[in-house]
């Protein structure tokens, strides 16, 4: 039976279709999940896609946190369900306290949309396990509020525990502290990433295929083994 990966659609999600397509290209089955439906429909993993959930009202991800589907996602994530939040999904994970820190407006005061070089700094998470430690990849980034911030003690802890999964190289696009592009939780099942691997999975239409590893890692690691 194929691995089933749920992709949540919130009002204002933009990249749910691309995330579902990336899941299929990687060889898994994509299952659409709806913000108002608390059921996760028995999926093996969940992706929170990019976009502007609830119009980014109040703060990015702040309203989505209280949606029915997120109550189920938070509970399942704490039990070890693999969850990947991309861009707005990363913001939702921080607002939901599944990941520490917050994402604020870009230091450059502009929406940044370009291809971005990243270095994979942790391959123990289920979502980065398809990469080599230190591997550099190029995938698109597109955000207005993508600067990752946290207090120094939290940043030290993330780095000390090897929980920074990806860093910006060749230039920090948004002012993220310590060039952090993505982090994971202590157990390794929850990952938040600001750039967009789902837009780099198809050589014909996208920006190369170096984002595909974020979706194929889940296939190599049976979900049951990721629970911590």
């Amino acid at each position, binding site marked *: 039976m194929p691995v089933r990966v749920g992709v949540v659609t919130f009002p204002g999600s933009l990249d749910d279709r691309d995330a579902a397509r990336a899941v299929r290209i990687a060889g898994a089955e994509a299952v659409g999940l709806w913000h108002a439906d608390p059921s996760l429909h028995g999926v093996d993993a969940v992706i929170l896609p990019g976009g502007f959930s609830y119009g980014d009202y109040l703060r990015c991800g*702040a309203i989505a946190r209280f949606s029915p589907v997120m109550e189920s996602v938070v509970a399942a994530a704490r039990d070890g369900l693999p969850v990947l939040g991309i861009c707005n999904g990363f913001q939702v994970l*921080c607002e939901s306290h599944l990941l520490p820190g*917050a994402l604020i*407006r*870009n230091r450059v*005061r502009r929406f940044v949309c370009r291809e971005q070089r990243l270095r994979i700094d942790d391959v123990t998470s289920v979502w980065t396990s398809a990469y080599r430690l230190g591997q550099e990849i190029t995938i698109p980034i597109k955000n207005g509020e993508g600067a990752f*911030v946290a207090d120094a003690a939290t940043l030290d802890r993330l780095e000390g525990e090897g929980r920074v999964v990806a860093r910006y190289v060749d230039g920090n696009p948004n002012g993220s502290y310590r060039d952090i592009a993505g982090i994971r939780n202590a157990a390794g099942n929850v990952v938040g990433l600001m750039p967009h691997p789902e837009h780099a999975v198809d050589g014909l239409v996208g920006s190369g295929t170096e984002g595909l590893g974020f979706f194929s890692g889940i296939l190599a690691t049976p979900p049951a083994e990721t629970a911590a």
Partner: protein
Amino acid sequence: MARVAVDVVLKAEILDPQGQAILGALARLGISGVSDVRQGKHFQLEVDGSVDDEQLAKIADTLLANPVIEDFTIRR
């Protein structure tokens, strides 16, 4: 019913690019003497007697503000 005001501002150590943009606009307006601008949010809540200070603090701390990056004040 009573009106409660909640003000939310970014913590002092968090960079505020919007405030910096406003500061730049002030200079172009020809006004000098403003050395810093911090942009925040102002909420007005109409509450009845059943909402106590503890509940107001919960509202501000869990929804209106993100305590990782923001401070809030509540005024009844």
